[in-house]
């Protein structure tokens, strides 16, 4: 392992700012993920402590989120995925993930959404999306459709949507209301049961029952439980083992690289499933999961190697940002999750050193003062500053 590359904070700042300003037409197919792209860029800048909007800009951009994405009708409050559809009320249904990303954006834009959004109506939307019976009972679907004047659920349920629903419930402060005040609550015990039943024989979690364990869905399951205040116990030992085995290594004693999915440059990275390529985003999904179960679990993986992979292999030294793998272009999703990972490891550095053998804590010698990130909330995946704004300002 050669010397760690410098963390190019100025270039990353420019990278996110370019995205916030304009997206080229080749990204128009991402129109329905726009709130997510905004979230990656804003919280990415926030983690870099480089989000410098004026008061007027904060208000202006919050207004943009409300104006273009908010849906309020007699029954529920939600956000839409693609702003253009606000012009077609007959076919304009709220979307679960858009609703979460809108709220997370409003937090970092310091907008007190509790004065604008009725929490019971947001929770009504969630209740309408929760699967009430069958093998997916407790889980959620992404959206609704209208059949003969009535709403019906549309789309496939999976653990990602469970996590999103639990996050929204927390952001609506339903977990701090008394049961009698929670007039539109979701069925949290069915949700918990659905998640726990997704733990596979390998310890990993799968999207729906019996499907291959997948690291992204594993994070979502663990995050969902954490947001429901679940207490993790020894039933997660196999999960910890599975998570730790996501870190990629090919010692010469046992591997000769004759399998196309085994790449030497992936060493130190994390993969999402067994025998797959490493990928920047799994740095977050793995170490975020470990930290959610208990922060000291972060000492169980080799963070020096993991850091090397991010800084030296997928960081784009020229354009800023991070790419999925060394052969791809940087994008906001992988850039945000790389930075979120680095921020998380820095946040728990003391605990990691205390619990692990990471005495050889390598820092780039050309960078004697390591860059200080803002803290990160590993359950909501937002900046510490936004979390504090939530705690102090959002009251229902």
């Amino acid at each position: 392992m050669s010397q760690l590359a410098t963390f190019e904070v100025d270039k990353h700042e420019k990278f996110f700012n370019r995205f916030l300003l304009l997206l080229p037409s080749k990204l128009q197919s991402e129109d329905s993920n726009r709130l997510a792209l905004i979230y990656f860029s804003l919280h990415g800048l926030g983690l870099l402590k480089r989000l410098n909007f004026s008061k007027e800009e904060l208000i202006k951009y919050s207004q943009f989120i409300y104006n273009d994405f908010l849906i309020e009708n007699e029954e529920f409050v939600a956000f839409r995925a693609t702003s253009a559809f606000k012009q077609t009320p007959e076919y304009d249904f709220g979307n679960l993930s858009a609703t979460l990303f809108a709220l997370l954006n409003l937090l970092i834009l310091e907008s007190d959404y509790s004065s604008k959004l009725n929490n019971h109506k947001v929770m009504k939307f969630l209740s309408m999306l929760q699967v009430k019976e069958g093998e997916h009972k407790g889980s959620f679907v992404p959206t609704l459709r209208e059949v003969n004047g009535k709403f019906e659920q549309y789309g496939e349920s999976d653990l990602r949507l469970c996590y999103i629903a639990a996050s929204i419930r927390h952001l609506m402060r339903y977990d701090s209301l008394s049961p009698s005040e929670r007039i539109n609550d979701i069925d949290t015990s069915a949700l918990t049961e659905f998640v726990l039943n997704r733990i596979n024989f390998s310890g990993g979690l799968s999207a729906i029952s019996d499907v291959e364990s997948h690291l992204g869905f594993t994070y979502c399951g663990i995050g969902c439980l954490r947001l429901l205040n679940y207490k993790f116990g020894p039933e997660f030992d196999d999960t910890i083992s599975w998570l730790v085995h996501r870190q990629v290594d090919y010692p010469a004693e046992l591997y000769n690289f004759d399998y196309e999915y085994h790449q030497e440059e992936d060493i130190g990275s994390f993969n999402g499933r067994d025998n797959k390529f490493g990928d920047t985003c799994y740095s977050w999904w793995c170490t975020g999961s470990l930290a959610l179960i208990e922060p000291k679990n972060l000492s169980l993986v080799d963070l020096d190697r993991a850091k090397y992979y991010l800084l030296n292999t997928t960081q784009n030294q020229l354009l800023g940002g991070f790419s999925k793998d060394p052969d791809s272009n940087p994008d906001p999703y992988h850039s945000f999750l790389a930075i979120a990972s680095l921020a998380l490891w820095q946040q728990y550095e003391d605990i990691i050193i205390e619990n692990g053998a990471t005495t050889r804590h390598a820092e780039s010698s050309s960078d004697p003062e390591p860059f200080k990130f803002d803290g990160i909330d590993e359950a909501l995946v937002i900046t510490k500053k936004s979390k504090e704004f939530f705690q102090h300002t959002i009251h229902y």
Partner: protein
Amino acid sequence: MATDYNFDDVETVKINEETPQLCQILYDDEYKHTIGILLGLLQIREYSERALYLTEKALELLASHYTIWIYRYDILVHLNKDLFEELDWCEQVALENEKNYQIWNYRQLIITRILATTDESSKKKFDPHREFPILQSMLESDPKNHHVWSYRMWLVKKFNLFKDDRENEFVNKCISADLWNNSAWSHRFFLKFSQEKDIPEETFATEKVYVQDYIIESPQNPSTWNYLTGIYKKYNKSIVDLEDFCLKFVDIEKIDDPNYVKSSFAIELLAKIFVKQQKNEASIQLYDILGSKYDPIRSNYWDYEKKKLISH
């Protein structure tokens, strides 16, 4: 837009491109034109052939927006279209764009409707085997496509294909083509073990031999070792039975010499077996060698496992 359909009478809806915005998209003319007409048709809830055609164009541009799929489905229902033709259309779309994930959920919706609207007396009935060729071509181009495998599991469950010969033959072929394909192993586990609580002893025995042969062929493969320990867990069998099998890949006397070690997974499982046999010292020795030589990236984890033994 090259088309036989005329949309001149449709009031095109303008997409808001006014500032202030964040992540503003520079839509090209085709996008503005197509989505503009689509929104115009949605406003008047037009269910027509030309609207059906337009949803195809719109989905090429914006596959990730659920509403367009919902609209397309509503058009099919209103026009009472042949849903088998719609399945053919889905196949074209899937083959043209492998990254179009929404197509699989949409396909489930179409099949569910076919089942609800046909019965034994219907001329055309849905045969789940009609799905095999499309799934095969999708998995040939990406053998680990998570969405396609998930769809395949849905199909197996929906039509009870757990013991279907063609399904089982398919998964055998996938494994023999690439015994490192974890998706194929997961699918096999699903076929063999996900349904019944009491699985016949015979299935356990044949599956054990099946996977052990593949471990012998390639000992450093996490997928096969997970499958083996997975069936032990499922059957509540003691892993101590596997001691001799593990020792085929590790010579404990000469464990420092890589010529006598073929698998870190064998060492890992042996360490667990030794704990069960209350040979903690032997187990600690194995964790040490994993951390120092055969799986060093997880050395902290092996230390953590060791500490658990020392503190007990």
